[in-house]
């Protein structure tokens, strides 16, 4: 027999009202505007766009406010919103070689064409809290340096000239890129599908796995061939126009990781590569993604799969923080009936256990008496 129990409507209603109140906080403090978040918490909005898998700054900002700054909750909100929109199509593949670069560094070549452009980086700051920011002082305009725009080829193109590095990842001619938003995950999976999952994967999870490869679990001696951040143009093929229609630009971060490789039965000694590409400005995520991409290519390159970061099913099945939080957090929802059943079972087992123990003791006593 199944007995449904209802209740809690008023409690839920009042809880959500309380949530709205606490979200607003002290009414004497001005309300946050979305443009303030877009402008001043830009990297937070970028993370929500990347892991929410939806490029829209204002929506990311709204999600952050609605979630009271809880990033995974904000990502959840964005993912949910995505499902309400129709799909217009797949864009032409972006060309990161023609990016309007805002930052570009290489750890492998000092003097590469286009140079090392530090851009708006936290690197080389002293990580000292700045009381002037708390005081809200004026900020000076940035420096400018005139000069012709130099072409900035991807570093992989430079390495490729010597033939000591593998080419960009190719797929068979007739391969249609997989889409995890359309097809359920299936293992083993092709690299293109893995990259889609990694690009929306949880930054913390990928960071920890990438770190584990550096510490010796699936060690593969990485160098940052290049990290670049900047804007790329999007174009979409539509039936009503004879050309790919330009949609505007988005900011992305790309990481080319170059890894030592001693060669195997399948491949000669050469540098191999891991690739990272994410929405917004997030080089930590792009680098972690590239480390994981390379580790997950173990089977393809004939390496032994010995570490968590090389285990495709483990990594990809647990990289999505919306799925992860859903399953972990559901544990707090009412499980009264499940628990009653378990309680009943444990009581019965305990009774049987006690009965066995008592019987054993009685037997011992009897033997002792004899």
């Amino acid at each position, binding site marked *: 027999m199944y007995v449904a129990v209802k209740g809690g409507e008023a409690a839920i209603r009042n809880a959500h009202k309380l949530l709205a109140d606490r979200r607003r906080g002290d009414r004497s403090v001005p309300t946050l505007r979305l443009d303030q978040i877009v402008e001043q918490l830009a990297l937070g909005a970028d993370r929500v766009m990347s892991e929410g898998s*939806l490029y829209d700054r204002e929506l990311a900002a709204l999600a952050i406010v609605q979630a009271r700054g809880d990033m995974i909750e904000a990502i959840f909100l964005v993912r949910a919103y995505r499902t309400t929109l129709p799909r217009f199509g797949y864009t032409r593949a972006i060309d990161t070689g023609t990016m309007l670069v805002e930052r570009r560094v290489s750890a492998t070549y000092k003097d590469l064409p286009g140079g090392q452009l530090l851009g708006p980086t936290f690197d080389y700051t002293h990580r000292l809290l700045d009381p002037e920011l708390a005081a809200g002082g004026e900020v000076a305009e940035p420096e400018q340096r005139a000069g012709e725009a130099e072409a900035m080829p991807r570093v992989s193109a430079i390495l490729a000239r010597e033939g000591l590095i593998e080419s960009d990842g190719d797929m068979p001619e007739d391969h249609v890129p997989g889409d995890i938003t359309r097809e359920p995950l299936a293992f083993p999976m092709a690299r293109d599908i893995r*990259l889609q999952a990694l690009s929306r994967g949880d930054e913390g999870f990928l960071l920890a796995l990438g770190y584990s490869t550096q510490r010796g679990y699936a060690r593969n001696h990485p160098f940052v061939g290049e990290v670049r951040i900047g804007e790329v143009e999007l174009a979409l093929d539509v039936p009503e126009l004879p050309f790919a229609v330009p949609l505007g630009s988005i900011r992305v971060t790309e990481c080319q990781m170059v890894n030592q490789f001693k060669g195997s039965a399948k491949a000669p000694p050469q540098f191999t590569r891991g690739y990272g590409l994410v929405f917004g400005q997030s080089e930590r995520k792009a680098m972690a993604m590239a480390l994981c991409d390379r580790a997950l290519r173990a089977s393809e390159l004939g390496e032994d799969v010995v570490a968590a970061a090389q285990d495709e099913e483990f990594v990809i099945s647990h990289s999505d923080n919306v799925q992860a939080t859903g399953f972990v957090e559901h544990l707090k929802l009412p499980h009264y009936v499940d628990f009653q059943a378990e309680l009943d079972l444990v009581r019965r087992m305990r009774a049987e256990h006690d009965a066995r123990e008592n019987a054993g003791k009685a037997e011992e006593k009897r033997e002792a008496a004899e």
Partner: protein
Amino acid sequence: MRGQEARDQAERKAVMATLAQSTGDDIVRLWNEAGLPSEAELLRGPETGLVTVRGRIGGGGAPFNIGEAAVTRATVRLASGQVGHCYALGRDKQKARLAAIADALWQDPAHRNEVEARLVAPLRAALAKARDQRRAETAATKVDFFTMVRGED
């Protein structure tokens, strides 16, 4: 004729790119200043949807899906018959409608010069200025390596 058609298409595409890159506020402001006609029959939208953004493995290899981006599109028809389209990143419906009208007006020989001069040219100039400034600001963070000479020899 073939060449002319290709040139027209390239120009139209460049106009659409400029409109897509520009903000709705800038388009509305210039539209009002120029007094361009904003009457048109809406054939579709404005409606917001998603496009799936693609990248390439390693930068130049096989394509893969990165994630989605919000796009708003509109299609309009002028009384004179020209049909205009807009697809632009974001969720600005007014921008999409005006950009579609601009695309239609641009195809109308009676309006092309006006659209080019009063709307597209100033937008293009503003975008170029912003791009140049961004480049110059980034260029100021370029590392100039120099060699430290140590010892006597």
